[in-house]
């Protein structure tokens, strides 16, 4: 029977998330604990234009000079400053004598975090992959004057698959290896420095009826940041498979999840939990050491989940999808923290992890003041980490026995204590 009383949503911890949708808009949603933890859309960058649909995004959220790279339809790649949305650079991915950009859309994009420590001009590396399998790694320079520098220092293109379409690509935590998989393409792992394929998966054997499901990987992720050998891939036939490069070419663990394709996989920082989202909006967390489903995230998500992001510090994940909602979930209780309606079907979401409660001046790319800025942001982040930890402890103690209103008042008490200190 439908519930007749209202359900109160606990608020979000202070977080900032950027979402990308099919009309090419970038929306920034922030939740501040002063306003009760309800996330609000703070900013919107771009004009609604469906020919500029955003297909992939990658954030490099360093403390100083964070950058956001987005790939639009038509082969256009832009690099923005995630703090204010100003474009730093825009590159076109169209290769001469290559296929039309309409057929060869960009599927995966990764902005590398390591960079040269040369302060005068910062060069960044981008890895892009298109559906026909053309992966290219290019490094671009961003001069400090924010001018549109279209110079690409080096660019290397190679073909990842002979036939079929690539649907998913990921780069591992140490940024030396990348994996690619798709429709008719078995998952392959490439060594990026040498540009060679080091491993290819083999599909599982025919089942007892003699039926062979065609290869169709829809999403994949590396299991932990340090280990490039284990990764999880989700298929179109609602299977989740764990592969281990050092063990065998066939999947090590494989299990089914509901009935629609697995559209998004995200890993947790402990190195064995993953979050999967499928085509009918079911989000679940799985322990990959055993292949056991830990639990489903229930929360009225009615559209396909296109992207899941895990906050690097707080136990919060964000999911977005075709039903135009951005939802924040608490990992431990698997409940919705809040949901924001964003009016367009969403394709990607990323977290900006350096969001602090106080107003931090946006870090400018001037070389002499860079050191100062890094110190400032680091200090403010440390202050923030302590009050958050205190809040978490109080919620753990009071959560089991005391009812919700009391927990909230305890949180309010903690806030006042922190402000005074």
């Amino acid at each position, binding site marked *: 029977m*439908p*519930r*007749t009383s*209202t*359900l*109160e*949503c606990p608020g979000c911890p202070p977080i900032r998330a950027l979402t990308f949708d*099919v*009309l090419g*808009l970038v929306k920034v949603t922030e939740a501040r604990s002063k306003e*009760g933890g*309800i*996330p*609000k*859309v703070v900013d*919107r960058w771009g004009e*609604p*234009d*469906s020919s500029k649909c955003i297909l992939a995004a990658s954030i490099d959220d360093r403390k100083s000079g964070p950058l956001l790279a987005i790939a639009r339809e038509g082969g256009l790649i832009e690099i923005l400053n995630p703090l204010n949305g100003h474009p730093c650079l825009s590159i076109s991915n169209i290769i001469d004598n290559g296929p039309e950009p309409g057929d060869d859309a960009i599927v995966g994009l990764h902005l590398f975090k390591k960079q040269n420590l040369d302060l005068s001009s910062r060069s960044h590396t981008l890895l892009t992959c298109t559906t026909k399998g053309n992966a290219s790694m290019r490094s671009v320079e961003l001069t400090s004057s924010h001018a549109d520098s279209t110079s690409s220092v080096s660019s290397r293109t190679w073909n990842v698959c002979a036939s079929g379409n690539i649907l998913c690509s990921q780069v591992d935590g140490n940024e030396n290896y990348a994996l690619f998989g798709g429709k008719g393409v078995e998952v392959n792992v490439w060594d990026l420095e040498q540009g060679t394929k080091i491993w290819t998966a083999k599909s599982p054997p025919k089942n007892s009826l003699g039926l062979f499901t065609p290869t*169709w990987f829809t999403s994949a992720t590396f299991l932990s940041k340090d280990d490039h050998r284990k990764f999880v891939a989700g298929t*179109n*036939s609602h299977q989740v498979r764990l592969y281990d490069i050092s063990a065998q070419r066939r999947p090590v663990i494989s299990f089914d999840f509901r*009935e*629609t*394709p697995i*559209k998004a996989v995200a890993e947790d920082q402990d190195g064995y939990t993953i979050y999967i989202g499928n*085509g*009918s*909006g079911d989000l679940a967390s799985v322990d990959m050491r055993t292949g056991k489903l830990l639990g489903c995230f*229930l*929360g*009225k*998500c*009615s*559209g*396909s989940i296109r992207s899941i992001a895990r906050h690097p510090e707080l136990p919060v994940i964000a999911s977005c999808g*075709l*039903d*135009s909602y951005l939802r924040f979930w608490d990992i431990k209780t698997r409940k919705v923290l*809040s*949901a*924001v*309606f964003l*009016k*367009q*079907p969403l394709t990607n979401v990323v977290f900006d992890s350096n969001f602090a409660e106080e107003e931090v001046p946006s870090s400018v790319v001037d070389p002499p003041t860079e050191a100062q800025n890094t110190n400032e942001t680091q200090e403010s982040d440390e202050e923030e980490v302590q009050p958050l930890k205190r809040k978490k402890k109080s919620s753990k103690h009071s959560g089991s026995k005391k009812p919700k209103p009391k927990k909230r008042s305890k949180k309010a008490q903690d806030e006042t204590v922190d402000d005074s200190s």
Partner: protein
Amino acid sequence: MEAKPCFWQSKYQIHAQAFPRFGWKSCEKTDTALIKKKKKRYCCHDRCPIVYVHLQLFAGNDADEFSSILNRKSDPKILITTCRFNSTRGPAFISELLSVIPNAHYYKRGTYDLKKIVEYAKKKDFTSLIVVHTNRREPDALLIIGLPDGPTAHFKLSKLVLRKDVKNHGNPTSHIPELVLNNFTTRLGHRIGRMIQSLFPQAPNFGGRRVVTFHNQRDFIFFRHHRYIFESKESKQGDSKGNKDKDAKGEKSSRGKVVARLQECGPRFTLKLISLQHGTFDTKGGEYEWVHKPEMDTSRRRFFL
């Protein structure tokens, strides 16, 4: 026309009362745009002036799959077929659907796969495919697939009354009907409304005095098909009744004014949306834009369409 609640307010006013802690209110304030809820008599632009313009909604509309038909760049052409096993009421319902929807063609199902039928229809330039599904000798589901890449809407069909069972029914003519879409207020409802709109040609013939109504109430879509006629009536002074429901075959009597009389013709049925899938029909590999889940029924007053 009096100001009706705007596009967003009508949904969010209800929800802001029921769920004050949710972030529903954020969407009211972000854009300066609110659209006046208008009865979607798409032809009568002069009667319903738009007060504000909702930019993202219109951009989304331009980008969606129905925009080419709704912008009159192409004409709708519908292919109707059934599930593999047909029933007694099925063919009768289909013949009535053929008379309601102009430019509709019926093909027998045979044993073709639905995905192959979709490809065949794309080749022959159909804009929409309707599959009538029967269960226990009664039509009970309707699948509307937009072509070429359009969304697939799966409706549950109930309370079907055929033309011969309607009392004092009329016979429809072949003029292009006028379309009335009521109460499709939410974003999802707007999308379904446009999908239904794309089944009919966008140039109604008012001389034909034929109207097809899809009325959404509490997530049920009621379909009615009427012929109307305006008559000028001279009535006595104390004889004024209140305005009745548009479905009634009643008379709006007022003093010496023009009166509309309705005669129902054609079938009568109700639809309820079960799921809306992105892309053409593909149950295994498809991703859903909207699918009903039992955990979504948190309130008796919350509806999705």
